[in-house]
C-alpha cells in the first residue's frame, strides 16, 4: 500500500495509497492533491531548475520541470487542475558553514523555485516545512491529502 519515491522520481496515485520519500536533505518533496478525485502525486526533486539548453533527464530531477509534469499526469489520470493543492517539505541546508551563508543554499533555491512554479500555475500552497538544517522523511496519504513530515534527529512528526 505504501510506495517509495526515490531521488528524481515522480509518482502519482489514488486513495488510499501512501507515497513515501526517505531522507530528504536539500532535496525537495512536492505533493499535489485533488481532494475531489482523491488523486495526488509526490515528486522528490534535487535541483531548482534545468539549465538553458540542458536536456532535463530524468525530468523529475528539476523542481520546475517536475511540477509541470506532475500536473499533466494528474489531469490525464482524471484530476481537476483547478482543485489542485500543493505542499512542500525539505530544502534544508545540511552542512552549515561560515562561507556558504552569503550565497543561497541549494535547498532554499529549490524551495523558491517550487513557490514560483506553483504560483505561475495558480496552485495554492497549502502547507510547507522547509529549510533549517535537518533531514526529513515524508509520507503522503492519498486518502486524506495529509503530508506527514518526520525528523529522525529530533524524533518528531509534523502533519501538514
Amino acid at each position: 500500500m505504501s510506495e517509495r519515491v526515490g531521488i528524481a522520481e515522480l509518482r502519482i496515485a489514488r486513495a488510499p495509497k501512501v507515497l513515501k520519500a526517505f531522507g530528504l536533505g536539500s532535496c525537495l518533496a512536492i505533493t499535489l492533491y485533488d481532494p475531489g478525485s482523491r488523486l495526488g502525486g509526490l515528486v522528490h526533486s534535487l535541483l531548482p531548475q534545468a539549465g538553458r539548453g540542458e536536456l532535463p533527464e530524468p525530468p523529475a530531477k528539476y523542481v520546475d520541470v517536475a511540477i509541470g509534469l506532475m500536473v499533466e499526469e494528474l489531469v490525464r489520470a482524471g484530476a481537476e487542475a483547478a482543485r489542485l493543492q500543493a505542499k512542500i517539505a525539505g530544502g534544508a541546508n545540511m552542512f552549515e558553514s561560515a562561507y556558504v551563508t552569503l550565497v543561497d543554499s541549494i535547498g532554499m533555491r529549490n524551495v523558491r523555485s517550487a513557490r514560483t512554479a506553483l504560483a505561475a500555475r495558480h496552485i495554492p500552497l497549502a502547507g510547507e516545512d522547509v529549510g533549517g538544517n535537518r533531514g526529513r522523511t515524508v509520507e503522503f496519504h492519498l486518502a486524506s491529502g495529509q503530508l506527514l513530515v518526520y525528523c529522525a534527529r529530533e524524533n518528531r512528526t509534523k502533519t501538514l
Partner: protein
Amino acid sequence: MPFRELNSIQLDALREISTIGMGHAATALSQILEQRIDLRVPKVSIMALDTVPQQLGGAESLMVGITLQILGDARGNIMLLFPQESACRLLSCLLHREERALVLNELNVSALKEVGNILASAYLSAIGNLLRKTLIPSVPLLAYDMAGAVVDYVLIDLSKGGDLALMIETDFVATDCTDRSIRGHFFMLPDPGTLEVFLSALKGDG
C-alpha cells in the same frame, strides 16, 4: 568522460590508487587512536544516484557525515560517514573519556571534523604524490542526520553532470579501548571531468 564508458582496467586503476590513498589515511588514523585499523578492499561502483543512500544502510539511519571538497588539479567530493554509535566510540577514544550518547557540542564537532581532515589530507596527498597532481582538501563540514539527507548534498554536485555516481568506497574498522568496533565509510566521488585527470596521469601523460 561519462562514467559508463570506463573499462575494467580503468576501474582497477582507480581502485588501486584508492587503496594506496586509504592505506595512508588509515595509518594516520591508527596513530592518533593508537589502535589497529582494518581496511576492506575498496569498492569502485558506478550507480544510479538515487541508490546511493540505500548502499549506506538505508536512507533513514542516523549518521555523522563529514564532507570535504577536493580542490587543485582535480575536483570532487570526499565524504566520511560514521554510524552514530561509531562516532560516539571514536570520540571516547579521541578525548579519552567515556561518551555514552552522541553529543555534538563544539569540542566534539571539532574533533570529528579533525578526523575528517586528517583522513582526507593523508588520502589526497598520497594520491597526489602518486599521480604528480596537487590535490588539496577544503575545510571540512559536518552534519548529523539521516543518511539520505546527509548524502544528497554531494549528489547535487554530481547530478549536474549526469545521473550516475562513481563512488570509490572503503570501509574501515577500528577497535576502541574496550574492543568495541568503530566503523566508518570513506567515499571519494570524483567529478566527471576529474576522471580524465586521474586516468591520463596514471598512463603517465599527465
